[in-house]
């Protein structure tokens, strides 16, 4: 299949100017980009098969550096097969899967099991990149065997879901991970300041009678990680940043040349804590949805590059787990299939610069985690998606490929649908 040459014509590219009618053509073959440029700038060879692509938006295949695919151990929420199917339909050609499985991904057999399942069910991708645990069992007391994990194929190290209280252990983890060329991803949340919290702390938590987490609960560990990163001259990647205090610290760190990178999720750019008024557990997430001024700060940080990448923090939970009183509900929601339409919506609303799209969702995550990616230069892997940006669809059981439906957008209509997805020249969707 993929040795055939394929010629895609009349594509659009991300653009802030709605009236810009420029179109592009793409030629691929042998799983690589052969040529890419404005329509008419190059001739397709006679043996190229034309692909109908009228008016589609062309993007490099996306990378999600933060997902929970739940396998092994919680296959009733999601498994690698369904999670990667959701990724494929959401436009993601590669995902990093966090280690909070059961058993925890703190040893090579678990890593290998994850990789084998991914290859078995999705041989042509999307590609799964396991993240190894930072500590044994994510307990935060002993370092996980990072050498063994690196050899088995993990792309990063993280204690995600269980923040590291012990500063000494965190320092040693950064140093030891560097020995294996691995970066540490930190879920920044001070465990003491976050004990028993249900939502963001502020007027809304006071109104709803729910225990709140202050933004300091997040920013304190952001500060710790920045200071360690500068002191050790080692990189650190900060997971799902949600508030102004954190981005102010990260901006300061970057101005000093600290090797810190940071991510946030579409929901921290779109939703705020006033949405919890009805105690709807679909909005319960960690870190919690913040106040309106934090949402504004996050948008600024994503546009000015303080935040390097977007991630989904895809966190499937079964319906019965979320249909409980608010304080009993688990944190998180699914995101793989809603992330791209939501991001496109931010661009449409003028809240996100179009030229940041591929940087946030592809180029920069590839750079941080040393993954292959497509810049549409000849020889790049033919990893790309075609999006019908106007196509409206409803988030429900008929449209979602994930096993779980815990989404704040459940029942709502989103605009933008992946109509084609190629990885290494293989068409996996469309």
């Amino acid at each position: 299949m993929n040795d055939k040459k394929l010629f895609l014509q009349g594509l659009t590219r991300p653009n802030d100017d709605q009236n810009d009618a420029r179109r592009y053509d793409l030629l691929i073959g042998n799983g690589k980009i052969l040529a890419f440029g404005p329509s008419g700038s190059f001739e397709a060879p006679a043996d190229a098969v034309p692909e109908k692509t009228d008016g589609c938006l062309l993007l490099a295949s996306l990378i999600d550096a933060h997902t929970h695919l739940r396998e092994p151990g919680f296959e009733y929420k999601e498994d690698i097969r369904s999670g990667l199917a959701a990724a494929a339909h959401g436009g993601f050609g590669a995902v990093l899967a966090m280690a909070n499985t059961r058993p925890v991904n703190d040893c090579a057999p678990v890593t290998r099991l994850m990789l084998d399942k991914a290859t078995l069910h999705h041989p042509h991708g999307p590609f799964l990149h396991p993240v190894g645990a930072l500590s044994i069992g994510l307990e935060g007391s002993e370092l996980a065997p990072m050498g063994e994990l690196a050899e088995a194929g993990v792309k990063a190290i993280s204690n995600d879901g269980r923040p590291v209280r012990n500063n000494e252990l965190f320092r040693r983890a950064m140093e030891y991970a560097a020995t294996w060329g691995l970066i540490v991803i930190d879920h920044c949340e001070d465990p003491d300041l976050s004990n028993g919290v249900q939502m963001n702390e502020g007027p809304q938590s006071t109104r709803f009678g729910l225990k709140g987490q202050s933004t300091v609960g997040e920013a304190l560990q952001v500060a710790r990680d920045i200071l360690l990163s500068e002191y050790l001259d080692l990189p650190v990647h900060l997971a799902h940043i949600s508030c102004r205090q954190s981005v102010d610290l990260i901006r300061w760190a970057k101005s000093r040349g600290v090797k810190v990178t940071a991510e946030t999720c579409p929901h921290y750019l779109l939703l705020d804590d006033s949405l919890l008024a009805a105690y709807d557990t679909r909005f319960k997430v960690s870190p919690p949805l913040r106040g309106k001024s934090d949402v504004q700060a996050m948008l600024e940080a994503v546009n000015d590059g303080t935040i390097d990448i977007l991630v989904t923090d895809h966190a499937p939970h079964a319906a019965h787990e979320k249909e409980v009183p608010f304080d009993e509900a688990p944190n998180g929601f699914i995101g793989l299939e809603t992330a791209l339409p939501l991001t496109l919506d931010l661009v449409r609303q003028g809240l996100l610069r179009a030229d940041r799209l591929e940087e946030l969702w592809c180029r920069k995550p590839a750079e941080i985690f040393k993954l292959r990616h497509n810049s549409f230069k000849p020889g790049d892997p033919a990893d790309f998606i075609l999006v019908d940006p106007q196509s409206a669809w409803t988030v429900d059981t008929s449209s979602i490929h994930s096993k779980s439906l815990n989404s704040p957008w459940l029942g709502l209509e989103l605009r933008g649908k992946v109509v084609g997805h190629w990885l290494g020249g293989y068409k996996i969707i469309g």
Partner: protein
Amino acid sequence: MDNFIWPHKDLLDVDDLTPDQLLHLLNTAEQFQEVNSRAVKKVPTLRGKGVVLFFAENSTRTKTSFDIAGKRLSADTFSLAKSGSSLNKGESLKDTALTLEAMSPDIIVIRHSSSGAAAFLAERLDCSIINAGDGWHAHPTQALLDSYTLRRFWRDQGQEMRGKTLLIVGDVAHSRVARSNIKLLNIMGVKVRLFAPRTLLPRGVDTWPVEVFDNLEKAVSGVDAVMCLRLQLERQAAGLLPNISEYASRFCINKRLMSLAAPGAPLLHPGPMNRGVEVASDMADSANSLVLDQVNAGVAVRMAILFLFGTRRDTIQPA
């Protein structure tokens, strides 16, 4: 009493009701108060109606108050406590609720430790849900009986409730009583002051329609009433207080502090009291204490609530 169409299925918090509806509810309670003073304290108003008292959190007084209120209206009341319920056997709140509803009660009165638990039931069930306290969120029947008590107290002295000033002292942060009372007292035209050590004040309290004081003596000066909140002893374990005796020695409402309030200012407490902790024993027993009036009012107010919600689809008259 004229016919008043009661448009509400549920009572989740006081601000579900309009000011007119709140007054109607309090006026209805006045009529039931009269029933409570009769030799035969029973009317047939809710005969054939079923009221489930679902108390997933410990409570003696609120549950008893609802039970008596229901029985005096001739409703059949059924109690379900957490111990002894299937909640202890791992059943979800949803299933407990659906199971209860399948037995066709007209009203479920719920007390639960989770904020939003009453709303959770209200969303899923067709019968009326009365919130008897959910987490730190709301306790509308307590607020209603407090306003009822204060309104009567001032009326007996020929005074209006509107324009009075009331101080709430104590653990506001974790208090559903304070939250519902602040809302209702504002609607009733009472100016509310708050005093508590900072650890017991919620973040964002500055956005509430209250005046927050950092000094108890200043806070109590000249107020027309004082409402004391129960101090949960677990606040010390949570590190919010160094110890109970430090709290008691500095913030306990005693006669000396009450002497700074307006002459004759009453003391309220939602109970149960920790004598010698948040309220001095002689103060609790003094003539200014309305604590037992509150308990007494509780039955009348809950009768009014059960009546209004229990007959919302009927056209019968009370008492």
